[in-house]
């Protein structure tokens, strides 16, 4: 029984899948290397049995989560991301297992910005951040044109009435 909530229309770039796959491969690759190093060192120097068991368990869990977050998660995440803004609210919807709907009123938006790391730059994408008085939200992987338009739109709508400090 899915929630009957009006969803925003905007979708993030398809290239997000590739970017996430790359970054997750790097991240998980490093973690797996560390585990492999520890396990090799442990068997060479004869560490305690329980330490080796723990290493194998956590190493195995990392390998499983690597499979999930490289092969499966990016596709679903990209497919389920929605964002949008009307005169009143910025809305975001995302999540694979848990679906999150977030609503930020324009009046409470404090800043909006674009970010681009090396991977995103390679694919010409931007991450858009919307900051309120206490937290901030990111919309990942927007193509340059859309990112800039959306930023300017929020900036314009949020600026009209900024009153209560």
């Amino acid at each position, binding site marked *: 029984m899915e929630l009957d*909530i009006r969803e925003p229309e905007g979708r993030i770039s398809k290239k997000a899948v590739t970017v996430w796959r790359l970054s997750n491969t790097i991240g998980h690759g490093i973690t797996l290397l560390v585990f492999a190093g520890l396990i090799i060192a442990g068997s060479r120097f004869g560490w305690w049995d329980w330490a080796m068991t723990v290493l194998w368990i956590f190493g195995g869990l990392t390998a499983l989560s690597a499979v999930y977050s490289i092969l499966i998660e990016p596709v679903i995440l990209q497919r389920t991301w929605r964002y949008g803004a009307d005169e009143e609210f910025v809305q975001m919807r995302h999540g694979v297992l848990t679906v999150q709907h*977030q609503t930020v009123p324009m009046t409470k938006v404090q800043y909006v910005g674009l970010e681009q790391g090396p991977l995103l730059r390679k694919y010409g994408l931007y991450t858009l951040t919307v900051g309120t008085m206490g937290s901030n939200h990111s919309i990942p992987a927007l193509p340059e044109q859309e990112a800039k338009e959306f930023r300017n739109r929020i900036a314009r709508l949020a600026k009209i009435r900024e009153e209560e400090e």
Partner: protein
Amino acid sequence: MESRRMHPGRILLSLYELVKNSAIVFIFLFVLRRGSDAGWVVAGRWIFIAAIAISTLNIILSWWRTTYRLEADSVQINSGIISRKHRNVPFRRVQNVNRQVPAVLRLFGLTSLTLETGADGEDASVKFPAITKAEAARIEEALDGYRKERMEADRPVTGSGSIGGEAQQMAGTGPLPGKIRTVHFTPELKDVLKASFLSFSFIALIPVLATLYSNIDDFFDLDSRAEGFLSFLAGSGIVLVITVALFAVAAIAFGIIRTYLKYGRYEISSDDERIYIRRGVLTEHSLSVRKKHVQAIQITETPFKRLLGLAEAKLVTVGSFEEGLEDISSLYPFLGKQRAVELVGELLPDIRVLDGMERLPKAALTVRMLRFPWTAMIGTLVLSFWRPDFPFVPDWPVLAAALFVFTYALRYFDYRNTRYAIRGPLVQFSKGGLSRETFVTRREKVIEAAVSQSFLQKRFGVATVGTTNRAKPVHVEELKDLPKSAAEQFNRWYTERNPELVRADEEAESWKTLRSGS
């Protein structure tokens, strides 16, 4: 307007603090080692004298170089002996006004005043450490005067219905700030007695004694004397009984005095514009906050207080509080629940604790029981590795079983206690397994809303809703496993009810029904 300095009492206050902080070093160097000619003691004395001289000079100069000026809509503060710092804080940013008056200041008829803003970091507040009461009143009036002017200027704007922002709209329809203060609560003797038992402050005698003991022990060898005393006690039953009784009497007396000093002269009052809370017998603490700046109300009932039907209501405000003032926004922690709820209604015309809240559906209980018990699982794993072996402690499987029973019992109690209401401009959540917490806020005070649904929740048709309110740090409230329809209603409540589109009389109407309902 002209620039002013703090009252010269500021110097005395700083000197008093200097003396207080350096007393132990002084006693050590000049009293306990008075006969000593050792090189390091002599050097230490000269360094001590130099440090005191420099600090004194610094205190006087920084008083001399700190000035402030009240402008039409802001306050300008200049400070710094050599590198100067100029700050300008607009009145519209001021959220709370606090006073903390230590006994030293009161002797001179002075007060401190802090203006708290919603900003972060060291510039979040403007502190006047020592000013006369008349001057403090003048500063507070400047704050109010600015607001009054602005409200009058806003009237025609809101009348024509242009973009105005919620704050002005409400200010425009409300009455002009009256200066008549109503006192809503002052504790009687029985309240203080109740408070002193319920706050368990008599237990606080133990750490106080321990600190005293270890401080004295640094200079005198108490340990060996104490041993002798203990063996003397153990030798005679009557002496032991008398000692314990004396200690109990001392602890209770200490508790009552301590509680009296903190909560004895509590006073909660309000006028049309602001809420005032003051407390403290020796050191006086007070808070004044605009009603419009109260973001939410939080009512906490600890298990002990629930047994006795007590509750603590707290105002959630944006400006944070300096040390020692953290709990000043509480409306007396030992009120009967009914009275606490009434008090909220008396103080805040816009927020009302709702009656007749909805309970969670049965499906929510199923979802909660099905959730993976991470804490209990990890606890069991740790126990099975560790296998604690102490006298009187049962074996680890028993402990693990107890952990699971506790986890699931807590889930059940939390399910039983959870309630919600979405009505008019208000939303109210109530939850907690052992302690119960009730949270109520208005739609326009919520700066962010979230609805989420996990895979499990989707199966059983429930969802989680959450609000974020301004505070420092932000106040995040979450309620799990509402029925799907209520979560959708919550989303509509937040996105579709535009405060600017709601007519003022319509708003008033919903209030009337709420009042008669409660």
